[in-house]
């Protein structure tokens, strides 16, 4: 398989961006990436637009045209990608495959989500309340569908509420060094645990906020990298797996609520492509999908950073903090950056690329050579893992 390189990255400020429209966000991220790659828009041969929830946002992102119109980028194939929280990573996967297949020479993957034009309870909560099956899972919000994992983890592995909340403390500390994060304020364990309960045992500070934001990468085949212009980061492995459905996790008697099979499958495939056998030693930083703090903890195990049941030891030993053995979410994660769903996976790739390029500023992971991103979408149904290297 041909090696693929990222030659341009761009990411907008994440937050409640009342002054920027969906189109503004597309332009902002795209032009940062295009300028970083030192190409012109017309060099792009195909593009993928990742927006997960047009209908609970501003009704934009239903098709590829919502990328073309703000960029005036016409007469090329543009496809909208929708795969819940793995949408952004899936856009990159599609771009990689098109480059390998020779469909185009320069590909753009752009993720954007505009959720904060509505009140939070009018978007994600409303989706769970008013849409979908009238009976099945009715009563859950997104937080609840992960809180049931937390309670089982606490029962089985002796994970404590403090362990879960420490993830939030760590990521908010990291986020305080990221000027593009939604929240840039560190918080204490006490603040996390005493903030308002959302779905027991997860509090508001254990949950990521709905967010506006966009991120973009420009990709080419490695052979087309211009060594004089570009500072390329190479895609070493891409794994994506749909391993269960929307309802099945809550109705499958064999599901243990201790692990996401999708993550394990996606990671296995990505590791194989990248030739990684011992991730904790071979990978220098990881961006994990911490939509709720418990998910990061559980994912340590699914990614093979530790054995099952030992995630609590990684967080207790501060091994995943900046300066630890394997820093996780040095960007601040979803908990600090926020979660514009379609943009998140690409934002993570941009973050890791910045570290591998050595220009991540105060939160730079020293001597980072290999990094990994992870997303989990739906109720643990869809996972993506991307491994990047220099």
């Amino acid at each position, binding site marked *: 398989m041909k090696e693929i390189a990222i030659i341009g990255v761009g990411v907008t400020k994440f937050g409640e961006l009342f002054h920027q429209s969906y189109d503004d966000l597309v332009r902002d991220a795209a032009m940062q990436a295009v300028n970083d790659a030192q190409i012109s828009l017309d060099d792009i041969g195909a593009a993928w637009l990742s927006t997960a929830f047009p209908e609970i946002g501003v009704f934009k992102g239903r098709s590829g045209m919502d990328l073309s119109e703000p960029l005036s980028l016409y007469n090329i194939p543009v496809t909208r990608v929708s795969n819940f929280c793995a949408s952004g990573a899936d856009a990159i996967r599609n771009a990689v495959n098109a480059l390998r297949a020779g469909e185009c020479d320069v590909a753009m993957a752009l993720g954007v989500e505009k959720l904060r034009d509505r009140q939070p309870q009018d978007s994600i909560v409303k989706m769970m*309340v008013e849409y979908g*099956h*009238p009976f099945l899972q009715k009563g859950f*919000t997104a937080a609840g569908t992960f809180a049931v994992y937390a309670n089982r983890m606490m029962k089985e592995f002796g994970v404590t509420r403090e362990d879960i909340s420490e993830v939030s403390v760590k990521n908010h500390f990291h986020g305080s060094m990221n000027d593009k994060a939604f929240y840039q304020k560190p918080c204490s364990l006490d603040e996390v645990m005493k903030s308002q309960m959302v779905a027991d045992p997860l509090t508001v500070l254990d949950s990521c906020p709905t967010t506006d934001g966009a991120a973009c990468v420009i990709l080419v085949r490695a052979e087309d990298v211009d060594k004089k212009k570009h500072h390329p980061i190479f895609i070493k492995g891409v794994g994506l797996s749909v391993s269960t459905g929307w309802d099945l996790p*809550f109705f*499958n008697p064999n599901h243990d609520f201790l692990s996401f099979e999708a993550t394990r499958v996606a990671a296995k495939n990505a590791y194989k492509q990248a030739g990684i056998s011992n991730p904790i030693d071979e990978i220098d930083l990881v961006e994990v999908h911490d939509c709720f703090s418990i998910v990061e903890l559980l994912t340590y195990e699914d990614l093979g950073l530790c054995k099952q049941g030992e995630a609590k030891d990684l967080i207790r030993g501060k091994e995943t903090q900046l300066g630890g053995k394997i820093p996780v979410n040095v960007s601040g994660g979803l908990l600090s950056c926020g979660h514009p769903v379609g943009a998140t996976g690409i934002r993570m790739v941009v973050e890791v690329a910045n570290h591998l390029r050595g220009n991540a500023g105060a939160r730079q992971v020293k001597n980072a050579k290999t990094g990994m991103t992870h997303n989990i979408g739906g109720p643990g149904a869809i996972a993506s893992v991307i491994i990047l290297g220099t």
Partner: protein
Amino acid sequence: MSNILSYGFYFPHFHVEEKILSPRYGRKGKRIVSYVDEDIITLSFEAVENCFSKIKNSKAEVDAILFATTSSVFHNRYHASFLADLLNLPKEIHALDFASTPRAGTDALIYANQMINAGIYKKILIVASDIHFPPIGEEPRNSFGHSAVAFILGNEGGVAEITSTNSFSSSIAEEFIYKNEKITYDPRYSRDAGFKHNTKSALEKIKVNAGDYDAVILNSLYAKLAGGIFFKAGFSEEQFAKDTVTSNYGYTSVCHALLQLIFSLEKKNILLFDYFNGTNIITIRVQSTPSSSERVGVRLESEGISYHDYLTLRKAGNFNSLKYDTKEMFSSEMMQEREKDTLQYLKGLKCDSCGTIYYLKSTRCKKCKCEKFTDVQLATTGTVYTLTSEHYFPTSFPPINMLVIDLDNGGRITVQQTDTMYPENNKIEIGSKVKLVLRKMMENDEKPNYFWKAIALRITN
């Protein structure tokens, strides 16, 4: 003569104490109130399940269902037909509603008895349920209690034999609704020209022999007056059954006479007098007295509620939480109909190869990829595998507990916990035993929309 093959009843989990509704009078007693997700349909469903749980007869043998209520939730639609479908009774069943007066409950019993005696039907299900709230402020003068009661009548031996039934119509009503307005006659007139006249002529006509009965149930607004009339007819006070229903549960309207009958089944020969806008007299000979543990079937340790929560409950069906106004929730009659076997009747699929039982349909077994399944009936009891409490899902009494439940005999289902007005009294954890009950799902109550929820399992029989 027809026989009572089985009986069942259901009282909601909550009560408001008399002293909370009328603190100035210092009365003792409780009034049972339904929870926000209950209505006469769900109450009836539970009473019928309680009724069938006591006998071996299957629902497939039922020929007719008679439903009595004075608090209809439907107009232009038979509650009996709707309930028959929810209960998975035979499609060709004869379904009828009895309405308009609290006497409709015993009327349904009389009609069923006559249909069986005439040899038209062999087994008839009789269900009665009422949910009334008096206008706010009028509670001290209007007793109320929410309940449902069910009987199965058949043509062969059972708990009790119905030995005679009589009904005497009266055109005079004490208090009634005309064009949505409440109308009260001069009480002297309705009492004397209505009640006294009708009761006396009924007693004269059927010529009851007072000595034949060891329990006389006098269900009437004029129970004391009725006692006087029966006394004159040769009955003694010791024969009069004490109305324990009103003090323990409140006045249950269409259920009241039938509940009193159930609570009198330890006696041998019962005369049931039911007056409201006419007289029904039913005599019953008890054949096998059920033990008291059988009679006290459904959980009785109800939870008392505050006056504020009583007011919130009265908004039943209007579930706006503090943070969120619920609008029309997606609901599809077509979806409910085509997924009825799963959603309503709890039919699951068992993998022919590895034996895994699934609640939801699938093409292949997730575990072993086998494509062959056999239908299985899932249980309504189970154990909590994991759970959470949702503080942001809109509901009148947050949080909503979501329970992932492993059903006894296999299958997993995820549903809301209910009857959780006071979460601290309904603590549930991994490993807790729970029971599935049918409740309303629709937050805005615009369409009938019922699904399973779970309650903490209490000792029932």
